[in-house]
């Protein structure tokens, strides 16, 4: 007790000093509280108050986090790392979150149901908070808390509306799968803690402990730990929940799920991966192999299964699984390059997914379905929408002149650099599979223009809904931005310098 008493003031000092590094997250927390309060009191007077507070909170948080640019710091006893990588990542997360919030608001504002939309905003804010923290930490404890924050928020988001059977089923699958994964990860973390006696995975003791740990148990621990991260990133074989949940969840929530949580988890994995593979010990090789194999299998499985989907949301779920594989490849490539390649790909991926789901949402509002065959012949009715949709498809496949192509090119470039450097056959397989799955993915992405333009269908009645146009406009802008970024990638890349 004596020790603690002596340490206490310095600890408190440290905590107080660290708070400024936490400004952005504090903004989110305040917005979270504000929006709850607004839901309770203000919304009756003015319906959009909680929405407004949420928006302001996110924007403020974005501004605050960008201010941290160029000042690498760490606070809370090294638990919080504020570096440029995390600033970028949080920037992307917050913009994506902002768009998700707008999507949610637009999607639900016309629906009549007994639940309060304000709660959804606040939960989205907590998810954002969790994500932010996830990008800033190298401490298992904080990482776990962040992951759980995001997870629990996501469970609620999926299950909150429960408009129909599918939504409730999706949420149940999500929560149970998620919790099991979290539990397994926790067990794995406990073993890691046991081996190292330290929770910071970048620390010397931690790595030292891993080097000395018994190999078999270490393998188990690492695999268990991967279960949790795998769940969040939904790579094979931890992807099973994704299609069901994506399909079942309301479209704006799917938009959220397919973008924001992945960014955070990916940043965490990137930190871990970079730290651990830089040495040449058993566990580092193991991590490299695990990530490479996961990447290869994920790309193959995701793209192959997507071939036979008829529901566009489900198809996009598999597509995002496939892209996760590619993100993992980008992560491996991150070893060779500055994080800008990874960030570029993440950004492009986020833009593409936001835009695609935005368009799906728009169409769902208009024709009341997300089945591919219902898009039949719609190309004439919505020429611009489907042109942009096709453009996004091109970008998702990775064809020029879109940003998707540049992203793929950079990833290939960095992997090739690695291959040239140490001639590891995993890199070669990654390259070949990455190229091959691009070809495969063309098949299903082009089902959209196929149905919309190539097939004839009767004109459909447009459902009388108003104000989907904001989502629509955002999606169109995002869609065109893939083209612009494809021709002038420097715009984005120079940001990530």
């Amino acid at each position, binding site marked *: 007790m004596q020790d603690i008493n002596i340490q206490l003031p310095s600890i408190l000092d440290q905590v107080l000093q660290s708070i400024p590094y936490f400004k952005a997250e504090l903004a989110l927390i305040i917005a979270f509280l504000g929006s709850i309060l607004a839901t309770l009191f203000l919304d009756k007077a003015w319906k959009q108050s909680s929405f407004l507070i949420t928006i302001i909170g996110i924007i403020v948080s974005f501004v605050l986090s960008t201010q941290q640019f160029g000042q690498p710091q760490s606070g809370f006893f090294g638990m919080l790392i504020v570096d440029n990588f995390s600033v970028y990542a949080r920037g992307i997360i917050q913009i994506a979150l902002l768009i998700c919030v707008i999507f949610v608001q637009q999607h639900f504002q016309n629906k009549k149901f007994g639940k309060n939309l304000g709660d959804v905003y606040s939960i989205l804010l907590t998810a954002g908070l969790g994500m932010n923290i996830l990008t800033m930490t190298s401490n298992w404890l904080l990482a776990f808390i962040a992951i759980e924050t995001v997870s629990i928020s996501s469970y609620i988001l999926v299950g909150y509306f429960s408009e129909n059977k599918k939504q409730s089923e999706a949420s*149940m*699958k999500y929560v*149970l*799968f998620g919790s*099991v994964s979290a539990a*397994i990860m926790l067990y794995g973390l406990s073993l890691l803690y046991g081996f190292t006696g330290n929770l910071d995975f970048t620390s010397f003791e931690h790595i030292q402990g891993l080097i000395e740990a018994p*190999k*078999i148990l270490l*393998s*188990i621990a690492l*695999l*268990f730990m991967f*279960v949790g991260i795998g769940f969040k990133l939904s790579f094979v*074989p*931890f992807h*099973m*929940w994704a*299609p*069901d949940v994506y399909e079942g969840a309301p479209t704006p929530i799917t938009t959220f799920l397919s973008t924001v949580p992945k960014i955070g988890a990916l940043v965490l994995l990137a930190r871990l991966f970079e730290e651990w593979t830089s040495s040449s010990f058993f566990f580092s090789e*193991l991590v490299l192999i*695990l990530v490479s194999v996961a990447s290869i299998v994920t790309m193959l*499985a995701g*793209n*192959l*299964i*997507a*071939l*036979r989907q008829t529901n566009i949301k489900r198809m996009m779920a598999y597509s995002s699984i496939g892209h996760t594989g590619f993100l993992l490849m980008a992560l491996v490539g991150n070893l060779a390059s500055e994080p800008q390649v990874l960030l570029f790909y993440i950004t492009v991926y986020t833009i593409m997914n936001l835009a695609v789901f935005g368009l799906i949402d728009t169409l769902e509002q208009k024709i009341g379905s997300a089945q591919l065959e219902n898009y039949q012949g719609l190309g004439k009715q919505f020429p611009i929408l489907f042109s942009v949709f096709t453009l996004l498809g091109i970008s998702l496949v990775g064809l020029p002149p879109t940003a998707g192509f540049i992203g793929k090119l950079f990833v290939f470039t960095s992997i090739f650099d690695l291959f040239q450097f140490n001639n590891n056959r995993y890199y070669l397989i990654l390259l070949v599979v990455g190229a091959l799955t691009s070809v*495969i993915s063309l*098949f299903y992405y082009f089902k959209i223009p196929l149905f919309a333009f190539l097939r004839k269908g009767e004109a459909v009645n447009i459902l009388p809904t108003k104000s989907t146009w904001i989502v629509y406009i955002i999606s169109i802008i995002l869609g065109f931005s893939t083209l612009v970024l494809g021709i002038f990638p420097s715009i984005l890349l120079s940001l990530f310098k």
Partner: protein
Amino acid sequence: MNYLLNISPIVASMLVVLLPFLAFLMQALLGKKFTSGIFSLVAIVLSTILSGLFVFAEVWNATPLQADYSWFTIGEKTFCFGILLNNLTVLMQFIVCIIALPVHIYSKSYMKGDAGIHRYWMYLSLFCFAMLGLTISKNLLMMYIFWELVGFASYLLIGFWFTKESAVQANKKAFLINRIGDLGFLIGLAILFSTFGTLDLVEILGKDGLLFQEVIDHNSGLITGAGICFFLGAMAKSAQFPLHLWLPDAMEGPTSVSSLIHAATMVAAGVFLLSSIFPLFNCTVLLIIAIIGTITAITAAIFALGQYDIKKILAFSTISQLGYMMVAVSIGAWDAGMFHLATHAFFKCLLFLSAGAVIHEMAHLKAHTHQDFDPQDLRNMGGLRQYMPKTFLLMSLASLALAGFPLTSGFLSKDAIVISAFEWALQQGDLYLVVPIILVLVSILTAFYIGRLIFKAFFGTLRVNADHAHLHDAPKTMLIPMAFLGICSLFIIFSWNPFSYANAAILNVLVVNYTFPEIHFLHTIVPVTLTASALLSWWIGYNWYVKGKYPLNASSSWIHLAQNQFGMNEWMMKTFVSPTVKLGKISFWFDKYIVDGLVNGASYLIKQLSGLITWIDKYIVDGIVNAVAYLAYELGNALRFVQNGRLQNYLGFTLTMVLIGIIYLILK
């Protein structure tokens, strides 16, 4: 005016070539509206005049001329439009002109009233352009171009009546077989180009040409190959066995066309080609040419015996005579070959034109009497002498020339070949004697079959019912050209001495050094033998075909004799004629079903092969492609199987994977 008359031979020869082309263009542009053919006629008249006065007269027996105009450069090699005027080429060009002119005039009335007459003139002019161009090409590439164009024009003309199935089949066959030859030519070009780096005739074969430089091994496989390839080209064009098959079929075209293209000029192009590039051939190639030529000569002559179609007899006769020319080339006496080419052109053209006149009349008869018979079948003719005396006269004259009867041009040229062949064979060795002996035999057969034609067609009585009023001589526009050709079939055109080819102008100018010595006694014995045997065969033929039909009509004092003759005929028939005719039939059968069958079989085989390959393409090559796509699709489907919606299966699957990972890591 004076200036105009002083055009140089080079320019004149170019004009000779270009005039028909101009006519072709005019006719093509004017199309259907213009049927008189006046452009073609004027063009060929001018060409003939130019060729005769400004080219032939200037260059013949004078210094050769040549001109080059740069055409295109490929890589570092430049190809030129070259014009080569030497004795050989101007002779050939002049022959083509002088034959084409009467045929044009003849066609004017022969083709009158045909619905496609405008095409006829167009094609004819195209042919003349190509043929005339072929004769004076200095560059082998250019020669090849004209060579194929000639074949193309021939294709068009054979299929002139394109609604007739047999005509269309025939022209396809003609073009394809000619294509085989063209490929030979093309590969020959490729060999020459890769050996010498140029295709210029003078540069390769001229006096200090590349061929005679020491680095070139004249007996190397490559040069032999080139020789064989060029000969292959000549074989197809000049209808040498076994590529002769297209020529009899080609008789589907208008008769005037047959006379010009398939008797006088185009088919002779092969001989002309071989003569132009003669130095290229080494002994091996020459021997092959000799063998093929001999086989062609004899087989075609035998085939001719079995024919009833008047045009087919002439076609086989042409093939046989071309075999003669080939033999002449192969023994080194290509001047004799060219000589025969020249004489043959006239009399064979005349034969065809006469046959055309006959067919024309028979067809008229058919139309008037509404009978159904083949106007070209000998068995339907007979006694035409009474109705068409002038035609008969001219055709007999041509036949005599073909048979090599003294005082005709054929006598001179045929003797030249046969005697040279004997001389060559005697020098080479005994076995080689087979060649001249066969040539003599062919000569006898030739006399026989042409006699048969004349006897059957013009003697006796008409074998179809006829209103005689409808049969008469051809109109003047047809007769005049025929008469002109008839005059040209006489010795005087070629030599003042009717009995010795030694004085023939063509041979005296185209100086060729024979490799074999002259043997004097042959120069008397061979002509005498040939003439005698021809007479004999006519006598037999006359008895058999003309007299043999009237055995009961003669007075009693003649009966014995007649019977004797008949008995003799019988004997002759049994021991000679019948087997020969039978052989002719058999060999024609062989030709039709086996040799031609091989061709058809090959085409059948190729069709089957293409069918098979298409099947492979569809089911195997494309099948693999689709199978890959299907596989990807099914793989995706199989993976979907796990995604059955049951949460605990998901968990189980995931954990199993983790477990497998753990086990793998442990075992590793």
